[in-house]
């Protein structure tokens, strides 16, 4: 190619040469003095808008370049007078770029990412790329945060990004701020696809084989051209300069079909981009503010503006919301069917019962609750008990906490004006989350109606089964022959890694509970297998211990200790029989049993508890040890038997009662009641017993 030929001479070339000339013209454009990257975008926009060509641009005189293409005089003169030099330089740069596999992507090119127009008002940037440009076509997620984000938020960002990467999402990220760096690391660790937007030119980036994610470089990761795409909206040799960060962030958000924002500073670039993304109907998830951050954030404002709230935690539990189909999070009405609620064990409390609970709590408390009373409903459903706290007990919404695992409730909460200001979270109510202030012993009142016989805990059964579906190392005997093993056949497909990590964290949290290891022996389990499927309120839920040893009741303490001592950075080894037994035991414990203990654990010492429980918790012989244990932890104040029609309107036929109790300041020893003379008519008034 005659690199010294005038640019306009490329007009009659066709095929490969024409394409190459166009690239050279583009590269030459980026070298025009005084034009800048935005000026280049403006020229390209004008070319496309007028259905013109770059040849026309280069053939224009100074006046036309100024009036039609918006160039300043100096830039226009540079184009007119130094076109040959620009082109010669461009050819050199093209050679250098090609030698390291860099492509130029101009708007309108086949590989140019779709969907950028709305973020650039048509003035699309010229991009340079290295790696697999097909990654632009898959599901893309950006996890981002404002500068100066907290360390806790960084941990949470790493968790979210890890779960999303494990789930096969392509992560879009930058390279040089802490959040981007961690997101990149998450993608590398998971072997996921990664689109990295640089804040400088691709040829400035240095050694082309150098891993672009700094944290990954420390762990000896190498640039993987199949799973990585480096993109830059800056000229090839452009160095970092002020203003590059926001332009990089804009491209990150524009490339992502889904955006997850961790901590968003008000008035910053990230807030502005999130608002643009919401306005343009992109899926935007924003983390609910951390309880401990103490920083003024725009997160709540973005949620009010239409972003979907996420609960941050170090496991990334809420990543399942990001992975759900867009329509599943939009409407409550369409999904609010009876069968789904039965699956969740979810039967909403009638308002009359909720108000009665608060009346009783006030009678027990013997006075109005003060405004600062911290209240939580760890399985709040539509929030009816929290609403009753507001309109019956006159408590401010700001001191009320509600948690529920059902994501379809989120839009319901947001529409509820009475609950505006209440701290409502879509997360697992059985698990602590210090990020949002939900920890044991932190609440003055714990009131609610937890699920009965929901199937959520059966998810644990997938963990031990999952180990069966994974390849195992062959066991060889002394003579090198492969030992034959009869393997159980798993009932589920292999558990995706991101689900496995979340379930692992929940299993660890629940293993700390006492209820699953309270004097319940394995014989009872077998005896109850047949009835478990059809009997609401039964403790055991269809386990299959065939082929494995029978667990003795004394093993449970050892199992709990095993899980407690397991290294936090390693998943539980579900090929171990003791771990499998623990998971099965957890899975077989009815969800209402865990929740009954959870209510107690959430209450402060001296805090009040009001919980709707099925009759089995109160009456079944099987739960006798549980009741004994509870009586060492709390004072049973009252049991109000509810008429059986209370829940029939919502499809449940279970006999229920409301249990009112007060957590003890200090647990009593086992057998405490044997020394008490209950004939001395003890009385309860004003929150304390007398006569005991």
């Amino acid at each position, binding site marked *: 190619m005659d690199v010294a030929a005038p640019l306009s001479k490329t007009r009659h070339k066709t095929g490969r040469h024409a394409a190459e000339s166009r690239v050279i013209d583009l590269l030459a454009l980026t070298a025009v003095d005084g034009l800048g990257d935005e000026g280049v975008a403006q020229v390209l926009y004008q070319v496309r808008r007028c259905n013109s060509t770059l040849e026309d641009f280069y053939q224009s005189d100074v006046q036309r370049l100024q009036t039609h293409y918006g160039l300043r005089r100096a830039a226009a003169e540079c184009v007119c007078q130094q076109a040959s030099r620009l082109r010669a330089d461009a050819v050199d740069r093209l050679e250098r770029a090609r030698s390291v596999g860099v492509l130029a992507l101009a708007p309108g090119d086949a590989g140019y990412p779709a969907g950028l127009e709305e973020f650039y008002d048509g003035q699309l940037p010229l991009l340079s790329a290295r790696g697999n440009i097909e990654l632009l076509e898959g599901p893309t997620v950006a996890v981002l945060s404002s500068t100066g984000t907290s360390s806790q938020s960084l941990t949470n960002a790493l968790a979210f990004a890890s779960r999303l990467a494990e789930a096969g999402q392509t992560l879009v990220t930058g390279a040089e701020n802490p959040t981007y760096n961690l997101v990149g690391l998450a993608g590398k660790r998971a072997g996921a696809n990664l689109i990295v937007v640089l804040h400088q030119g691709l040829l400035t980036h240095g050694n082309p084989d150098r891993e672009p994610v700094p944290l990954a470089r420390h762990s000896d990761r190498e640039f993987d051209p199949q799973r990585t795409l480096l993109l830059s909206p800056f000229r090839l040799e452009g160095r970092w300069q002020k203003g590059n960060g926001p332009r990089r962030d804009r491209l990150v958000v524009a490339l992502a079909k889904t955006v997850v924002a961790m901590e968003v500073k008000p008035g910053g670039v990230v807030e502005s981009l999130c608002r643009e993304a919401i306005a343009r109907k992109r899926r935007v998830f924003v983390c609910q503010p951390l309880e401990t951050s103490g920083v003024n954030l725009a997160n709540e404002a973005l949620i009010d503006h239409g972003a979907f709230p996420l609960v941050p935690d170090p496991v990334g539990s809420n990543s399942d919301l990001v992975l759900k189909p867009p329509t599943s999070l939009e409407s409550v009405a369409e999904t609010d069917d009876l069968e789904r609620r039965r699956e969740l064990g979810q039967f909403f409390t009638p308002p009359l019962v909720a108000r*009665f609970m608060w009346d009783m709590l006030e009678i027990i408390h013997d006075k109005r609750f003060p405004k600062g009373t911290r209240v939580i409903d760890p399985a709040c459903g539509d929030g009816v008990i929290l609403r009753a706290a507001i309109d019956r007990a006159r408590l401010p919404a700001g001191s009320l906490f509600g948690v529920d695992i059902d994501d379809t409730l989120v839009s319901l909460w947001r529409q509820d004006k009475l609950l505006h200001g209440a701290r409502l979270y879509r997360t697992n109510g059985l698990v602590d989350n210090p990020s949002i202030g939900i920890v044991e012993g932190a609440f003055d009142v714990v009131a609610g109606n937890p699920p009965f016989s929901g199937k959520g805990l059966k998810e644990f059964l997938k963990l031990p089964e999952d180990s069966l579906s994974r390849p195992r190392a062959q066991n060889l005997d002394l003579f090198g022959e492969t030992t034959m093993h009869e393997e159980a056949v798993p009932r589920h497909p292999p558990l995706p890694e991101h689900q496995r990590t979340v379930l692992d964290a929940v299993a660890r949290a629940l293993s700390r509970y006492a209820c699953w290891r309270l004097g319940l022996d394995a014989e009872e389990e077998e005896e109850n297998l047949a009835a478990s499927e059809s*009997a609401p309120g039964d403790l055991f839920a269809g386990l299959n211990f065939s082929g494995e040893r029978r667990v003795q009741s004394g093993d449970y303490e050892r199992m709990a200790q095993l899980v407690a001592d397991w290294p936090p950075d390693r998943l539980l080894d579900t090929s171990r029989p003791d771990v499998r037994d623990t998971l099965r035991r957890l899975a077989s414990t009815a969800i209402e049993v865990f929740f009954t203990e959870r209510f107690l654990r959430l209450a402060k010492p001296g805090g009040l508890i009001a919980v709707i429980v099925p009759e089995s918790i*109160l009456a079944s012989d099987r739960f006798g040890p549980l009741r004994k244990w509870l009586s060492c932890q709390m004072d049973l104040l009252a049991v109000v*038997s509810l*008429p059986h029609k209370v829940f029939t309107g919502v499809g449940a036929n279970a006999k229920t*009662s409301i249990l009112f109790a007060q957590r003890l300041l200090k647990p009593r020893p086992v057998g405490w009641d044997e020394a008490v003379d*209950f004939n001395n*008519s003890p009385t309860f008034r004003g929150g304390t017993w007398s006569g005991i």
Partner: protein
Amino acid sequence: MKEMKAQLPDAPRLEVKLVQREIRENNRWDAGYYDHAFRENEKLLTGLGAVPLGQFIPDELPDASKGITYGQVGERHFSPRGAVRYLQVINIRDTGIDFAVKPDRVSEGSHNDPDRSRVRAGDILFTNNAFRGTDTTVSAWSASIPSTSAAS
């Protein structure tokens, strides 16, 4: 204690009992257990030699069977076009058996339709997790519904 202001459905009065000693002795927290009528019925049944079903079934039966099961066996598998109605606790209402709430069906002869679970006119159905007033008897309605299997 103060008089209750709130009223629950079907509960025109709230009865308050202090039963601390009894709770310690019985380890029962259900309020109904301390109802006079409940205790009388319990005494009556005990006098008749009634025991929980689990205690009633011996470990080994004369015919060398391994035992008697009740209720469903294995995982529930509903079949919308199944020939057999699947009776569940929720179908037993104050007014009798009502399939409007969960009109599930199972395939005839499937593991969800063992012979022993087929209900017949004259059967008395108990639930294993019930409350007074909703156990039921099977009358002649089965003539209009070809067959029905019962979950426990």
